[in-house]
């Protein structure tokens, strides 16, 4: 099995980065061997990357259902368990039930959306990672694994397309 190495090519603009990704694909690097890190959200459409799937919408719906169930417990469960008559109103009053159900559903949806972002992104994580600070300055980094022997040709290919720098990645504390 040939040894592989992970290189990081840093680009300043989106166009050369998109071209570089095409070139890498042409040179035999699969999409799953590439990782794009950027300082602004560059969509898959712009870079010609496969669609990213996210669990966040499903988690949001699940959270909404969970919130609804909690709301149902508060609005129907607690008055049945501990019945107290107030104001001549029914034990399960209409409008207050709507309010409680709505608020708990929204709370469930939003909290689970928030937590879903971290769940899907495996954050927070403070272990050392492959990163360069230039990324938050608006640069686009393409991390790709290539065979060690072909490393010079990849470096040359990236540089010819306008990469600011191409070097092996270093795993470091962010």
């Amino acid at each position, binding site marked *: 099995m040939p040894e592989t190495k992970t290189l990081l090519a840093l680009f300043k603009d989106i166009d050369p980065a998109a071209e570089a990704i095409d070139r890498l694909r042409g040179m035999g690097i699969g999409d799953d061997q590439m990782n794009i890190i950027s300082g602004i959200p560059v969509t*898959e459409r712009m870079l010609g990357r496969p669609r990213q799937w*996210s669990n*966040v919408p499903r988690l949001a719906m699940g959270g909404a259902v969970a919130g609804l169930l909690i709301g149902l417990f508060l609005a129907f469960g*607690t008055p049945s368990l501990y019945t107290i008559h107030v104001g001549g109103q029914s034990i399960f009053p209409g409008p207050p039930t709507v*309010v409680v159900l709505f*608020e708990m559903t*929204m709370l469930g949806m939003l909290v689970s959306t928030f937590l879903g972002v971290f769940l899907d*992104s495996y954050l927070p994580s403070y272990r050392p990672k492959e990163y360069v600070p230039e990324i938050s300055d608006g640069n686009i980094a393409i991390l790709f694994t290539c065979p060690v022997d072909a490393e010079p040709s990849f470096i040359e290919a990236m540089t010819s397309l306008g990469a600011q720098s191409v070097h092996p990645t270093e795993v470091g504390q962010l």
Partner: protein
Amino acid sequence: MAVTAETLEHAHLEDHEDPRQHLMLDPKPRGEMNALVMESMHATSWKFWVVAAILALVVAVCLFGAWGYMISEGLVLSGVNRPTYWGIFLVNTVFWIGISHAGTFVSALLRVFKAEFRRPFTRAAELMTGFGLVQAGLSIFMHMGRVWITYWMVPYPNERGLWPNFHSPLSWDFLAINTYLLSSTMYLFLPLIPDLAMARDRSTGWRKIFYRLLALGFRGTEGEWTHLRIAMNIFAFAILPVMFSVHTIVAWDFAAATRPGWSSTIFGPYFVVGALQSGIAAVAMVLVVIRSTMKNMKYFIRAEHFDALGKLMLVVSMAWAYFFFNDYTVQWYGGDKFTHVLLHFHEAGPLGWMWFGMLISNVAIPWLLLWNKKIRRNPGLLFIIGLFINVGMWIERYIIIPISLTINREPFTWRLYKPGIEIVLGIGTLAFFILLYMIASRLVPLVPVWEVQEGQLAHGLRRVGKATVTSVSELE
């Protein structure tokens, strides 16, 4: 008609308008913008420390000190009596919740409507939401007779055989305000993560440890951005009904009661529009202060933003006037005798000058001034107009709460309300709000630089016929 897209350098402008006065058409390299934002956080003059020290003193004495004294003595120190059992504490609560709607309006409503001018100040507005809700929460706790057992309003399994009463609008308040507080804090934090990562990359020392901790290890991979963007979209759409529901439920604290002048069916939307009015005016005021006191903010916050906010203030003022007139007309026309006495008391009673002051501040001043582009684009003038609007909105809630409570169906109990320690505590909450904001301006990058860069990427100039026009692309 041929349309050609030309790069900025080659754009020929027939108009005398320089496109670079628009932030979105005046891009700087991201690294430079990052440096501007970091510098505005770090550059702290001695004046800042003096103001912060004074505010901290005011908070210690007028807020926590006075409140502690009131807890030990009882509500006898306040101006509350029969029949005005709610006074300035509730006025402040509703006022601060109104201010808190600023953030959601800017970051959610404007985002949903793709109003690009929101980009540089979404975070400044969202911070107002969080800190405003803190003050609202404090004001609500202050008005409680036995604040040390307020936790009985929390629905949790307990050994008392009692859950909160969900028939009560105050329980709905509890659920709604907490949902809103949590949601807007989460919505503040999500777009903040990339900027925290930027700050982490550009900091040293204790700041680096602080930002590294809060940035949660964010790098900007495709996956992270995708999840973040999807979540922000969900939040933007979902937090809007929450925002509307919060102030509607606060309005129902009054509308659900059987008091003349209170049981008005229009209170729900009336309060929401009132909250938007005071919120937008407060955002304008805060932006003026940020722009004039913080370094480099003049690049990000420009006349065009004040122009847009001024237009919003005018439109919302018209909406407020519509709802106010609605509420007033139906009570004036078909109200019972106590409602009529109440309306007369509002206008011609001992505090009638407040009623007229409210109408002048909320209606006359915006309508007479905000139609003028030069006035809107002038930060100083917009600050004054915003101040008038906020004072007018505070007066509106004062009229609705203690003044309306004076008149009820038992004339023998009618009595005026004279504020007591509430004024001191109110000043304390205002000082606390400003202090929290000042501290946040040192710790949190106030401008979402990645969103500004994203917007600048999406904006361009193109030729349509002989005119050069701005065009905005949909990047997502």
